Protein backbone atom coordinates (compact mmCIF):
# COMPACT_ATOMS: atom_id res chain seq x y z
CA UNK A 1 0.00 0.00 0.00
CA UNK A 2 2.79 2.38 1.00
CA UNK A 3 4.66 1.40 -2.16
CA UNK A 4 1.62 2.16 -4.34
CA UNK A 5 1.21 5.56 -2.67
CA UNK A 6 4.90 6.26 -3.22
CA UNK A 7 4.64 5.32 -6.93
CA UNK A 8 1.57 7.52 -7.44
CA UNK A 9 3.27 10.44 -5.73
CA UNK A 10 6.47 9.85 -7.70
CA UNK A 11 4.45 9.80 -10.91
CA UNK A 12 2.73 13.07 -10.01
CA UNK A 13 6.06 14.75 -9.20
CA UNK A 14 7.61 13.53 -12.47
CA UNK A 15 4.68 14.95 -14.43
CA UNK A 16 4.98 18.26 -12.60
CA UNK A 17 8.72 18.44 -13.29
CA UNK A 18 8.16 17.64 -16.96
CA UNK A 19 5.50 20.33 -17.17
CA UNK A 20 7.87 22.88 -15.61
CA UNK A 21 10.56 21.87 -18.11
CA UNK A 22 8.10 22.46 -20.95
CA UNK A 23 7.91 18.80 -22.01
CA UNK A 24 4.46 18.20 -23.52
CA UNK A 25 2.28 15.80 -21.61
CA UNK A 26 1.56 12.47 -23.32
CA UNK A 27 -2.09 11.80 -24.10
CA UNK A 28 -3.82 9.37 -21.74
CA UNK A 29 -4.31 6.71 -24.41
CA UNK A 30 -0.64 6.45 -25.41
CA UNK A 31 0.23 2.78 -25.60
CA UNK A 32 3.10 1.30 -23.61
CA UNK A 33 5.63 -0.93 -25.29
CA UNK A 34 4.34 -3.82 -23.25
CA UNK A 35 0.79 -3.22 -24.48
CA UNK A 36 1.97 -3.03 -28.08
CA UNK A 37 3.99 -6.22 -27.85
CA UNK A 38 1.17 -8.10 -26.14
CA UNK A 39 -1.25 -7.29 -28.93
CA UNK A 40 -0.78 -9.29 -32.13
CA UNK A 41 -2.40 -6.56 -34.23
CA UNK A 42 -0.46 -3.69 -32.63
CA UNK A 43 2.91 -5.42 -32.78
CA UNK A 44 2.35 -6.29 -36.42
CA UNK A 45 1.52 -2.64 -37.16
CA UNK A 46 4.58 -1.47 -35.23
CA UNK A 47 6.60 -3.91 -37.34
CA UNK A 48 5.14 -2.36 -40.50
CA UNK A 49 6.02 1.11 -39.28
CA UNK A 50 9.61 0.16 -38.42
CA UNK A 51 9.95 -1.55 -41.81
CA UNK A 52 8.92 1.74 -43.40
CA UNK A 53 10.64 4.29 -41.15
CA UNK A 54 13.51 2.44 -39.52
CA UNK A 55 17.11 1.82 -40.54
CA UNK A 56 18.75 -1.60 -40.99
CA UNK A 57 19.37 -2.08 -37.26
CA UNK A 58 15.73 -1.30 -36.59
CA UNK A 59 14.69 -3.84 -39.21
CA UNK A 60 16.70 -6.56 -37.44
CA UNK A 61 14.94 -5.56 -34.26
CA UNK A 62 11.66 -5.91 -36.12
CA UNK A 63 12.52 -9.50 -37.12
CA UNK A 64 13.12 -10.29 -33.44
CA UNK A 65 9.81 -8.62 -32.57
CA UNK A 66 7.89 -10.64 -35.15
CA UNK A 67 9.56 -13.92 -34.17
CA UNK A 68 9.02 -13.18 -30.47
CA UNK A 69 12.77 -13.31 -29.74
CA UNK A 70 13.17 -9.88 -28.20
CA UNK A 71 16.28 -8.95 -26.26
CA UNK A 72 16.32 -6.78 -23.13
CA UNK A 73 17.94 -3.81 -24.90
CA UNK A 74 15.34 -3.94 -27.68
CA UNK A 75 12.76 -2.35 -25.42
CA UNK A 76 14.83 0.84 -25.21
CA UNK A 77 15.14 0.99 -28.98
CA UNK A 78 11.42 0.41 -29.40
CA UNK A 79 10.73 3.34 -27.08
CA UNK A 80 11.88 5.74 -29.77
CA UNK A 81 9.05 4.57 -32.05
CA UNK A 82 6.37 4.39 -29.40
CA UNK A 83 5.15 8.01 -29.35
CA UNK A 84 4.99 8.29 -33.12
CA UNK A 85 3.25 4.94 -33.35
CA UNK A 86 0.63 5.86 -30.74
CA UNK A 87 -0.04 9.15 -32.48
CA UNK A 88 -0.50 7.48 -35.87
CA UNK A 89 -2.77 4.74 -34.58
CA UNK A 90 -4.84 7.30 -32.67
CA UNK A 91 -5.36 9.32 -35.88
CA UNK A 92 -6.20 6.14 -37.76
CA UNK A 93 -8.79 5.17 -35.14
CA UNK A 94 -10.52 8.53 -35.64
CA UNK A 95 -10.72 8.03 -39.41
CA UNK A 96 -11.69 4.38 -38.94
CA UNK A 97 -14.80 5.50 -37.07
CA UNK A 98 -15.83 7.64 -40.04
CA UNK A 99 -15.71 4.63 -42.38
CA UNK A 100 -19.34 3.59 -42.10
CA UNK A 101 -21.75 1.59 -44.30
CA UNK A 102 -23.53 4.92 -44.94
CA UNK A 103 -20.34 6.41 -46.36
CA UNK A 104 -19.82 3.31 -48.53
CA UNK A 105 -23.34 3.71 -49.92
CA UNK A 106 -22.86 7.43 -50.43
CA UNK A 107 -19.73 6.76 -52.50
CA UNK A 108 -21.46 3.89 -54.34
CA UNK A 109 -24.21 6.24 -55.52
CA UNK A 110 -21.62 8.25 -57.44
CA UNK A 111 -19.23 5.50 -58.47
CA UNK A 112 -20.28 2.49 -60.59
CA UNK A 113 -17.26 0.41 -59.54
CA UNK A 114 -18.03 0.80 -55.84
CA UNK A 115 -21.66 0.06 -56.68
CA UNK A 116 -20.62 -3.31 -58.12
CA UNK A 117 -18.37 -4.04 -55.13
CA UNK A 118 -21.19 -3.17 -52.69
CA UNK A 119 -23.43 -5.61 -54.57
CA UNK A 120 -20.79 -8.32 -54.12
CA UNK A 121 -19.77 -7.84 -50.49
CA UNK A 122 -22.37 -5.43 -49.08
CA UNK A 123 -21.60 -1.99 -47.57
CA UNK A 124 -20.46 -3.71 -44.37
CA UNK A 125 -17.97 -5.79 -46.37
CA UNK A 126 -16.53 -2.62 -47.86
CA UNK A 127 -16.24 -1.04 -44.41
CA UNK A 128 -14.54 -4.13 -42.97
CA UNK A 129 -11.97 -4.06 -45.75
CA UNK A 130 -11.17 -0.35 -45.52
CA UNK A 131 -11.04 -0.38 -41.73
CA UNK A 132 -8.59 -3.26 -41.85
CA UNK A 133 -6.33 -1.37 -44.23
CA UNK A 134 -6.53 2.14 -42.86
CA UNK A 135 -4.39 1.28 -39.82
CA UNK A 136 -1.63 -0.08 -42.03
CA UNK A 137 -1.80 2.92 -44.36
CA UNK A 138 -1.55 5.26 -41.35
CA UNK A 139 1.72 3.71 -40.16
CA UNK A 140 3.34 3.04 -43.53
CA UNK A 141 2.12 5.71 -45.94
CA UNK A 142 1.62 9.11 -44.23
CA UNK A 143 0.99 10.96 -47.51
CA UNK A 144 -1.78 8.60 -48.56
CA UNK A 145 -3.26 8.68 -45.06
CA UNK A 146 -3.29 12.48 -45.13
CA UNK A 147 -5.19 12.45 -48.43
CA UNK A 148 -7.72 9.94 -47.11
CA UNK A 149 -8.23 11.93 -43.89
CA UNK A 150 -8.77 15.14 -45.87
CA UNK A 151 -11.26 13.42 -48.18
CA UNK A 152 -13.17 12.01 -45.21
CA UNK A 153 -13.34 15.50 -43.67
CA UNK A 154 -14.62 16.97 -46.95
CA UNK A 155 -17.32 14.31 -47.24
CA UNK A 156 -18.34 14.98 -43.65
CA UNK A 157 -18.51 18.71 -44.20
CA UNK A 158 -20.63 18.20 -47.32
CA UNK A 159 -22.97 15.96 -45.31
CA UNK A 160 -23.37 18.09 -42.23
CA UNK A 161 -20.90 20.99 -42.07
CA UNK A 162 -19.95 24.23 -43.80
CA UNK A 163 -19.96 22.78 -47.30
CA UNK A 164 -23.54 21.61 -46.81
CA UNK A 165 -24.53 25.11 -45.66
CA UNK A 166 -22.89 26.58 -48.77
CA UNK A 167 -24.63 24.11 -51.08
CA UNK A 168 -27.98 24.75 -49.39
CA UNK A 169 -27.56 28.49 -49.73
CA UNK A 170 -26.76 28.14 -53.46
CA UNK A 171 -29.83 25.92 -53.85
CA UNK A 172 -31.98 28.53 -52.15
CA UNK A 173 -30.39 31.29 -54.19
CA UNK A 174 -31.13 29.46 -57.46
CA UNK A 175 -34.75 28.92 -56.46
CA UNK A 176 -35.17 32.58 -55.46
CA UNK A 177 -33.66 33.95 -58.68
CA UNK A 178 -35.14 31.27 -60.91
CA UNK A 179 -31.69 30.46 -62.34
CA UNK A 180 -30.96 27.30 -64.22
CA UNK A 181 -28.17 25.69 -66.15
CA UNK A 182 -30.05 25.27 -69.41
CA UNK A 183 -27.16 25.60 -71.84
CA UNK A 184 -24.93 23.25 -69.91
CA UNK A 185 -27.74 20.80 -69.35
CA UNK A 186 -28.47 20.65 -73.09
CA UNK A 187 -24.87 19.66 -73.67
CA UNK A 188 -25.06 17.06 -70.93
CA UNK A 189 -27.94 15.45 -72.81
CA UNK A 190 -25.61 14.44 -75.66
CA UNK A 191 -25.40 10.69 -75.42
CA UNK A 192 -21.99 9.88 -76.81
CA UNK A 193 -19.33 10.39 -74.15
CA UNK A 194 -16.59 11.80 -76.43
CA UNK A 195 -19.01 14.19 -78.19
CA UNK A 196 -20.37 15.36 -74.85
CA UNK A 197 -16.89 16.02 -73.46
CA UNK A 198 -15.90 18.02 -76.54
CA UNK A 199 -19.14 20.07 -76.63
CA UNK A 200 -18.88 20.76 -72.92
CA UNK A 201 -15.31 21.88 -73.07
CA UNK A 202 -16.05 24.11 -76.13
CA UNK A 203 -19.07 25.70 -74.48
CA UNK A 204 -17.31 26.47 -71.21
CA UNK A 205 -14.26 27.81 -73.00
CA UNK A 206 -16.33 29.99 -75.36
CA UNK A 207 -18.14 31.49 -72.41
CA UNK A 208 -15.34 31.94 -69.94
CA UNK A 209 -12.01 32.07 -71.72
CA UNK A 210 -10.25 35.04 -73.25
CA UNK A 211 -11.76 38.46 -73.70
CA UNK A 212 -15.36 37.73 -72.77
CA UNK A 213 -14.39 35.55 -69.82
CA UNK A 214 -14.34 35.70 -66.09
CA UNK A 215 -11.69 38.43 -65.83
CA UNK A 216 -13.63 40.63 -68.29
CA UNK A 217 -16.82 40.18 -66.29
CA UNK A 218 -15.10 41.25 -63.06
CA UNK A 219 -13.53 44.27 -64.76
CA UNK A 220 -16.86 45.31 -66.22
CA UNK A 221 -18.44 44.90 -62.83
CA UNK A 222 -15.84 47.16 -61.19
CA UNK A 223 -16.46 49.78 -63.84
CA UNK A 224 -20.23 49.56 -63.53
CA UNK A 225 -20.23 49.89 -59.77
CA UNK A 226 -17.34 52.34 -59.53
CA UNK A 227 -16.29 54.59 -62.41
CA UNK A 228 -19.59 54.65 -64.27
CA UNK A 229 -21.51 55.32 -61.10
CA UNK A 230 -19.33 58.32 -60.17
CA UNK A 231 -19.61 59.69 -63.74
CA UNK A 232 -23.38 59.42 -63.61
CA UNK A 233 -23.49 61.26 -60.30
CA UNK A 234 -21.43 64.17 -61.60
CA UNK A 235 -22.82 64.56 -65.10
CA UNK A 236 -25.75 66.92 -65.60
CA UNK A 237 -27.03 65.69 -68.96
CA UNK A 238 -30.12 63.77 -67.87
CA UNK A 239 -30.77 62.11 -71.24
CA UNK A 240 -27.26 60.63 -71.39
CA UNK A 241 -27.50 59.59 -67.76
CA UNK A 242 -30.64 57.60 -68.32
CA UNK A 243 -29.30 55.88 -71.42
CA UNK A 244 -26.05 54.97 -69.67
CA UNK A 245 -27.90 53.58 -66.68
CA UNK A 246 -30.15 51.50 -68.93
CA UNK A 247 -27.13 50.14 -70.82
CA UNK A 248 -25.39 49.33 -67.54
CA UNK A 249 -28.42 47.56 -66.14
CA UNK A 250 -28.69 45.52 -69.32
CA UNK A 251 -25.05 44.48 -69.04
CA UNK A 252 -25.58 43.54 -65.41
CA UNK A 253 -28.56 41.44 -66.42
CA UNK A 254 -26.45 39.55 -68.97
CA UNK A 255 -23.78 38.93 -66.30
CA UNK A 256 -26.45 37.69 -63.93
CA UNK A 257 -27.82 35.19 -66.43
CA UNK A 258 -24.36 33.89 -67.25
CA UNK A 259 -23.41 33.56 -63.61
CA UNK A 260 -26.79 32.07 -62.76
CA UNK A 261 -26.21 29.28 -65.21
CA UNK A 262 -22.90 28.50 -63.46
CA UNK A 263 -24.57 28.39 -60.06
CA UNK A 264 -27.39 26.23 -61.43
CA UNK A 265 -24.84 23.89 -62.99
CA UNK A 266 -22.95 23.65 -59.70
CA UNK A 267 -26.00 21.93 -58.27
CA UNK A 268 -27.27 19.94 -61.22
CA UNK A 269 -24.05 19.42 -63.16
CA UNK A 270 -21.96 16.32 -63.25
CA UNK A 271 -18.25 16.02 -62.44
CA UNK A 272 -16.99 16.75 -65.96
CA UNK A 273 -18.99 19.96 -66.12
CA UNK A 274 -17.83 21.09 -62.70
CA UNK A 275 -14.24 20.29 -63.62
CA UNK A 276 -14.49 22.37 -66.82
CA UNK A 277 -16.19 25.33 -65.13
CA UNK A 278 -13.88 25.24 -62.16
CA UNK A 279 -10.83 25.29 -64.43
CA UNK A 280 -12.04 28.36 -66.32
CA UNK A 281 -13.53 30.33 -63.43
CA UNK A 282 -11.57 29.46 -60.31
CA UNK A 283 -8.46 28.65 -62.30
CA UNK A 284 -7.99 25.23 -60.71
CA UNK A 285 -5.23 23.50 -62.65
CA UNK A 286 -6.23 20.19 -64.20
CA UNK A 287 -5.43 17.53 -61.64
CA UNK A 288 -2.32 15.59 -62.44
CA UNK A 289 -3.38 12.14 -63.60
CA UNK A 290 -2.08 9.47 -61.26
CA UNK A 291 0.42 6.98 -62.63
CA UNK A 292 -1.28 4.76 -65.19
CA UNK A 293 -1.63 0.99 -65.21
CA UNK A 294 1.04 0.34 -67.86
CA UNK A 295 3.66 2.39 -66.00
CA UNK A 296 2.99 0.63 -62.72
CA UNK A 297 3.03 -2.74 -64.46
CA UNK A 298 6.62 -2.04 -65.52
CA UNK A 299 7.81 -1.98 -61.91
CA UNK A 300 5.50 -4.71 -60.57
CA UNK A 301 7.47 -7.94 -60.37
CA UNK A 302 5.69 -11.19 -61.27
CA UNK A 303 6.71 -14.82 -60.66
CA UNK A 304 8.69 -14.99 -63.90
CA UNK A 305 10.52 -11.81 -62.94
CA UNK A 306 11.52 -13.30 -59.60
CA UNK A 307 12.89 -16.40 -61.32
CA UNK A 308 14.90 -14.29 -63.77
CA UNK A 309 16.27 -12.14 -60.93
CA UNK A 310 17.21 -15.30 -59.04
CA UNK A 311 19.31 -16.55 -61.96
CA UNK A 312 21.09 -13.20 -62.24
CA UNK A 313 21.76 -12.77 -58.51
CA UNK A 314 22.79 -16.40 -58.02
CA UNK A 315 25.30 -16.21 -60.88
CA UNK A 316 26.68 -12.91 -59.59
CA UNK A 317 26.77 -13.45 -55.82
CA UNK A 318 26.89 -17.25 -55.35
CA UNK A 319 28.32 -18.87 -58.48
CA UNK A 320 29.15 -21.89 -56.31
CA UNK A 321 25.58 -22.16 -55.04
CA UNK A 322 25.26 -25.86 -55.92
CA UNK A 323 28.20 -26.78 -53.72
CA UNK A 324 26.71 -25.02 -50.70
CA UNK A 325 25.04 -27.06 -47.97
CA UNK A 326 21.21 -27.30 -48.27
CA UNK A 327 20.93 -25.18 -45.09
CA UNK A 328 23.15 -22.43 -46.55
CA UNK A 329 21.27 -22.58 -49.83
CA UNK A 330 18.07 -22.11 -47.90
CA UNK A 331 19.45 -19.08 -46.04
CA UNK A 332 20.59 -17.54 -49.33
CA UNK A 333 17.23 -18.26 -50.99
CA UNK A 334 15.30 -16.76 -48.05
CA UNK A 335 17.51 -13.69 -48.07
CA UNK A 336 16.95 -13.30 -51.83
CA UNK A 337 13.17 -13.59 -51.44
CA UNK A 338 13.13 -11.02 -48.64
CA UNK A 339 15.13 -8.61 -50.79
CA UNK A 340 12.78 -9.16 -53.73
CA UNK A 341 9.75 -8.49 -51.58
CA UNK A 342 11.17 -5.37 -50.05
CA UNK A 343 12.40 -4.04 -53.45
CA UNK A 344 9.04 -4.66 -55.17
CA UNK A 345 7.14 -2.95 -52.36
CA UNK A 346 9.49 0.01 -52.36
CA UNK A 347 9.13 0.45 -56.13
CA UNK A 348 5.33 0.23 -55.97
CA UNK A 349 5.22 2.71 -53.07
CA UNK A 350 7.27 5.15 -55.15
CA UNK A 351 4.63 4.99 -57.92
CA UNK A 352 1.72 5.47 -55.50
CA UNK A 353 -1.94 5.75 -56.51
CA UNK A 354 -4.67 3.30 -57.41
CA UNK A 355 -2.75 0.95 -59.70
CA UNK A 356 0.19 0.67 -57.30
CA UNK A 357 -2.28 -0.44 -54.61
CA UNK A 358 -3.85 -3.01 -56.97
CA UNK A 359 -0.52 -4.42 -58.16
CA UNK A 360 0.67 -4.42 -54.53
CA UNK A 361 -2.29 -6.61 -53.54
CA UNK A 362 -1.65 -8.95 -56.48
CA UNK A 363 2.10 -9.05 -55.76
CA UNK A 364 1.39 -10.13 -52.17
CA UNK A 365 -0.92 -12.88 -53.48
CA UNK A 366 1.64 -14.10 -55.99
CA UNK A 367 4.44 -13.87 -53.42
CA UNK A 368 2.52 -15.82 -50.77
CA UNK A 369 1.92 -18.69 -53.20
CA UNK A 370 5.39 -18.59 -54.78
CA UNK A 371 7.14 -21.95 -54.74
CA UNK A 372 10.61 -21.23 -53.36
CA UNK A 373 11.70 -24.70 -54.41
CA UNK A 374 11.40 -23.59 -58.01
CA UNK A 375 14.51 -21.48 -57.33
CA UNK A 376 17.33 -23.97 -57.70
Amino acid sequence: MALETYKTEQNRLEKEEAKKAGIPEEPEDTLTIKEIINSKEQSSLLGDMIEHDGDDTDKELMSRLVSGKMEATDIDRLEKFRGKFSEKTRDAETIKEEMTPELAQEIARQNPEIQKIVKLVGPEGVVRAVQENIMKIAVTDPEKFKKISKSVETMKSFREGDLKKLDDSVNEFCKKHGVNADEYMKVMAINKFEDRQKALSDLVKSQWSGQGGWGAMKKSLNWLSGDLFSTIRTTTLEGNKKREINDALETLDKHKKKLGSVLGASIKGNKDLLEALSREIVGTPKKKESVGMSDVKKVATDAEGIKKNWDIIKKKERPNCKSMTPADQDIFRNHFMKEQESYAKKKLAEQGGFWAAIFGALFDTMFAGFDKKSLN
Partner: protein
Amino acid sequence: MSTTDATKSLLEEFTKVVETGNEQAAKDFIIDHLKEFPESAQTKIISAFFFDALEKEADGIEKRAALQKEALAVFADIEKADSKLGDEKKKIELKEGLGI
Protein backbone atom coordinates in the same frame (compact mmCIF):
# COMPACT_ATOMS: atom_id res chain seq x y z
CA MET B 1 -7.11 -27.47 -59.28
CA SER B 2 -5.65 -26.32 -55.93
CA THR B 3 -6.33 -22.85 -54.53
CA THR B 4 -2.79 -21.80 -55.41
CA ASP B 5 -3.21 -23.05 -58.98
CA ALA B 6 -6.55 -21.25 -59.29
CA THR B 7 -4.98 -18.01 -58.04
CA LYS B 8 -2.01 -18.51 -60.35
CA SER B 9 -4.21 -18.89 -63.41
CA LEU B 10 -6.31 -15.90 -62.31
CA LEU B 11 -3.16 -13.76 -62.08
CA GLU B 12 -2.04 -14.99 -65.49
CA GLU B 13 -5.40 -14.12 -66.98
CA PHE B 14 -5.22 -10.68 -65.38
CA THR B 15 -1.73 -10.12 -66.82
CA LYS B 16 -3.15 -10.78 -70.30
CA VAL B 17 -5.81 -8.11 -69.77
CA VAL B 18 -3.18 -5.66 -68.45
CA GLU B 19 -1.08 -6.24 -71.55
CA THR B 20 -3.89 -4.90 -73.75
CA GLY B 21 -3.37 -1.54 -71.96
CA ASN B 22 -7.13 -1.13 -71.42
CA GLU B 23 -7.44 0.18 -67.83
CA GLN B 24 -11.22 -0.09 -67.70
CA ALA B 25 -11.09 -3.72 -68.85
CA ALA B 26 -8.49 -4.43 -66.15
CA LYS B 27 -10.68 -2.79 -63.48
CA ASP B 28 -13.72 -4.74 -64.69
CA PHE B 29 -11.74 -7.99 -64.62
CA ILE B 30 -10.67 -7.45 -61.01
CA ILE B 31 -14.20 -6.63 -59.85
CA ASP B 32 -15.81 -9.46 -61.82
CA HIS B 33 -13.34 -11.95 -60.31
CA LEU B 34 -13.07 -10.29 -56.88
CA LYS B 35 -14.44 -13.25 -54.97
CA GLU B 36 -11.95 -15.62 -56.61
CA PHE B 37 -8.95 -13.84 -55.05
CA PRO B 38 -7.67 -14.89 -51.61
CA GLU B 39 -9.36 -12.98 -48.80
CA SER B 40 -6.34 -10.83 -47.93
CA ALA B 41 -6.10 -9.69 -51.58
CA GLN B 42 -9.85 -9.00 -51.69
CA THR B 43 -9.50 -6.67 -48.71
CA LYS B 44 -6.66 -4.74 -50.35
CA ILE B 45 -8.45 -4.56 -53.71
CA ILE B 46 -11.68 -3.26 -52.15
CA SER B 47 -9.68 -0.66 -50.20
CA ALA B 48 -7.83 0.48 -53.33
CA PHE B 49 -11.10 1.00 -55.22
CA PHE B 50 -12.79 2.64 -52.25
CA PHE B 51 -10.01 5.10 -51.38
CA ASP B 52 -9.65 6.05 -55.04
CA ALA B 53 -13.41 6.71 -55.32
CA LEU B 54 -13.43 8.58 -52.00
CA GLU B 55 -10.63 10.91 -53.10
CA LYS B 56 -12.32 11.58 -56.45
CA GLU B 57 -15.65 12.30 -54.79
CA ALA B 58 -14.09 14.68 -52.23
CA ASP B 59 -12.11 16.40 -54.96
CA GLY B 60 -15.33 17.01 -56.92
CA ILE B 61 -17.02 18.43 -53.83
CA GLU B 62 -14.12 20.80 -53.19
CA LYS B 63 -14.16 22.04 -56.79
CA ARG B 64 -17.90 22.56 -56.60
CA ALA B 65 -17.58 24.54 -53.35
CA ALA B 66 -14.79 26.75 -54.74
CA LEU B 67 -16.88 27.49 -57.81
CA GLN B 68 -19.98 28.26 -55.76
CA LYS B 69 -18.10 30.59 -53.40
CA GLU B 70 -16.53 32.52 -56.27
CA ALA B 71 -19.77 32.80 -58.26
CA LEU B 72 -21.83 33.78 -55.21
CA ALA B 73 -19.37 36.55 -54.31
CA VAL B 74 -19.52 38.01 -57.83
CA PHE B 75 -23.28 37.68 -57.92
CA ALA B 76 -23.47 39.68 -54.70
CA ASP B 77 -21.37 42.43 -56.34
CA ILE B 78 -23.72 42.47 -59.33
CA GLU B 79 -26.71 42.85 -57.04
CA LYS B 80 -25.02 45.77 -55.27
CA ALA B 81 -24.25 47.57 -58.56
CA ASP B 82 -27.73 46.75 -59.80
CA SER B 83 -29.35 48.33 -56.77
CA LYS B 84 -27.12 51.46 -56.89
CA LEU B 85 -27.89 52.06 -60.56
CA GLY B 86 -31.56 51.23 -60.04
CA ASP B 87 -31.81 53.92 -57.35
CA GLU B 88 -30.16 56.43 -59.64
CA LYS B 89 -32.60 55.53 -62.44
CA LYS B 90 -35.56 55.99 -60.09
CA LYS B 91 -34.29 59.45 -59.09
CA ILE B 92 -34.12 60.52 -62.75
CA GLU B 93 -37.57 59.12 -63.46
CA LEU B 94 -38.97 60.90 -60.42
CA LYS B 95 -37.42 64.19 -61.52
CA GLU B 96 -38.83 63.63 -65.04
CA GLY B 97 -42.26 62.93 -63.54
CA LEU B 98 -42.09 66.13 -61.55
CA GLY B 99 -40.89 68.04 -64.61
CA ILE B 100 -37.67 69.17 -62.89
